[in-house]
């Protein structure tokens, strides 16, 4: 009989739980029909309550996701009408490569764009992330200095094959900034403030410059910009000439030092 007492006690707890779930369900029934039965605390990112049982009818209902949740990274582009995404317009990424460097499993591959003159341009023409390798650590988003890459909240990524569709290319990774603003409100707020601070700093700098120019103008001999440019060019030429002369003197000093040395 002793063993039975354990069973009865356990069943008692289970039964109380069962009753509780109905009672709590009645008490906390949300106002709007078809709304999530989970308490509002959950939606605010707070833990679920202890009493009763509850089932979230996934996929019809989904638990809310905290802002910092991270799954796969995505790239941001400014969603202006005149931006052509195919021409890499408005994409924030500058191909600086920091994200690829900090990525622990090394699953980011970036190709930096080149201009017509063959010089590198600050755009990524190709950007791949291998989702099957990504460990969802969020380092790329954390350390990107340009706020160009963020962590997505989308966790429903099943696919019919597991090779090509798991390597995300640039166009698949791109999401509009508005999407980022919607899923990361706090982060977005910080970004806006930064932008404001930056603009403020710029404005102040410009003002200071203007004030200086005005002060210089007050001195009487305000230079016209064309002349100033000319003067600068001349100064530069002078400097280059001087350097050439110095080098020539050095070469002469070393006597018959070979040219290519």
């Amino acid at each position: 009989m002793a063993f039975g007492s354990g069973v009865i006690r356990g069943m008692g707890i289970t039964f109380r739980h069962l009753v509780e779930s109905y009672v709590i369900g009645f008490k906390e029934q949300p106002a709007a029909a078809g709304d999530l039965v989970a308490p509002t605390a959950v939606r605010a990112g707070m833990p679920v309550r202890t009493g009763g049982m509850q089932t979230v009818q996934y996929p019809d209902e989904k638990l809310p996701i905290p802002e910092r949740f991270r799954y796969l990274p995505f790239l941001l582009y400014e969603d202006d009408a005149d931006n052509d995404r195919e021409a890499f317009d408005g994409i924030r990424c500058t191909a600086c490569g920091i994200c690829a460097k900090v990525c622990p499993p090394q699953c980011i591959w970036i190709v930096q764009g080149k201009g017509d003159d063959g010089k590198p341009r600050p755009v990524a023409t190709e950007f791949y992330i291998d989702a099957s390798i990504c460990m969802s650590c969020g380092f790329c988003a954390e350390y990107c200095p340009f706020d160009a890459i963020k962590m997505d909240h989308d966790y429903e990524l099943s696919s019919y094959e597991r090779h090509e569709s798991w390597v995300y290319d640039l166009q698949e990774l791109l999401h509009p900034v508005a999407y980022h603003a919607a899923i990361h409100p706090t982060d977005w707020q910080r970004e806006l403030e930064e932008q404001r601070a930056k603009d403020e700093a710029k404005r102040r700098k410009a003002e200071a410059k203007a004030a200086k120019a005005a002060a210089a103008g007050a001195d009487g001999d305000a230079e016209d910009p064309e002349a100033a440019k000319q003067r600068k060019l001349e100064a530069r030429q002078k400097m280059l000439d001087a350097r050439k002369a110095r080098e020539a003197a050095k070469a002469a000093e070393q006597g018959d030092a070979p040219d290519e040395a």
Partner: protein
Amino acid sequence: MKPLDLMQPPPPPSRRREAPAPQPVADGPMVLNIGPHHPSTHGVLRVVVELDGERVLSATPDIGYLHTGIEKTFEAKSYVKGTTLAPRMSYLSPINNNLSYVLSVEHLLQVEVPERATVTRVLLAELDRLASHLVFIGIHALDLGASSVMLYTFREREQILDLMEMVGGARMFPSYIRPGGLAFDLPPGFEEAVATLLDKMPAAIDQYERLLTKNPMWKRRTIGVAVLGAEDAIRFGVTGTAMRAAGIGYDLRRALPYCGYEHYDFDVPMHTDGDAYARYLLRIAEMRESVKIAAQALARLPDGPYATADRKVAPPPKHELATSMEAVIHHFKLWTEGIKPPPGEAYVAVEAPRGEMGFYIVSDGSGRPYRVHMRSPSFVNLQALETMVKGSLVADLVTAVASLDPVLGEVDR
């Protein structure tokens, strides 16, 4: 009798053959593999047991099925990337592993950590201990056939994981603790959420106790089972609850305090029986202590910076990047070259839910560790398995493994 028809082939011989005389079962012991795919081995642990009937003559854990080469991987990653690896070793106590790794790196760097970060670390480490012990209780009961306990313990564990997700973005591996402090500040609403959870915790623990502590079946399966005495515990270097259950009050939070544990008011629960039941009782008591410590940490959580201002260790906060060129340079330098501790070695251990968890790191002055080695409690504790089960029944082997609560990721590395 029918004459034999010579034109016909002879009939097949009768299938019935003389049964061999019954042989006595071999006198020698039977060797049986338990695992590597067995639900009660908590992962891919293989135990080679020699049996005489139901009696265990010897039990040898055969490890290595989850070998990941993680120690070697550390050598190829910068110190900050290491914070993503350290928790992945032990998926049940990721925060404590993360903490141990970071404390070792910080010891190499000799960097000061702000108070807010330290207190947050304590708070998270205790929540982590709670989450880990909840798994222990649920799975231990499940292994012994009490399947409903797990449903209750995972209910609370889920909420702790939600908290982890809230602070660090991931339930299991937030990698939130970084050299020099934390990755980000605590999110708004976190303190209230923790307070709500801590309020509910004691009642929840009472509920688990109602299910198990006085349950006659539970007692029959755990009292006097898998006994590990004090002498053996010391001999094997066993730490954690298994050691405290044997009557040795060794807890690193007391013995070698880190993160300011000496300023918290808590008890180190002890027992002298050394059996599975004692270990269960200790874990329950430790959970209550953890709730106490976490509440104290929450109460004293100060304002202030969450990471050190040393730009060679922690990156500048993001908002500085927009306005300060210096910050951008620090940022780039930190991520291209990484943290560079001076040459030397460090070993800092923490009291993880399973015992002493320590990271031994050798630095050669470069941006990557020269060598990283872990002293993981699961690995050391598992050695005592044979001593615990010798001479007992096979069913008690399950109790022994469950009450040691090994994490195979930590055992094999």
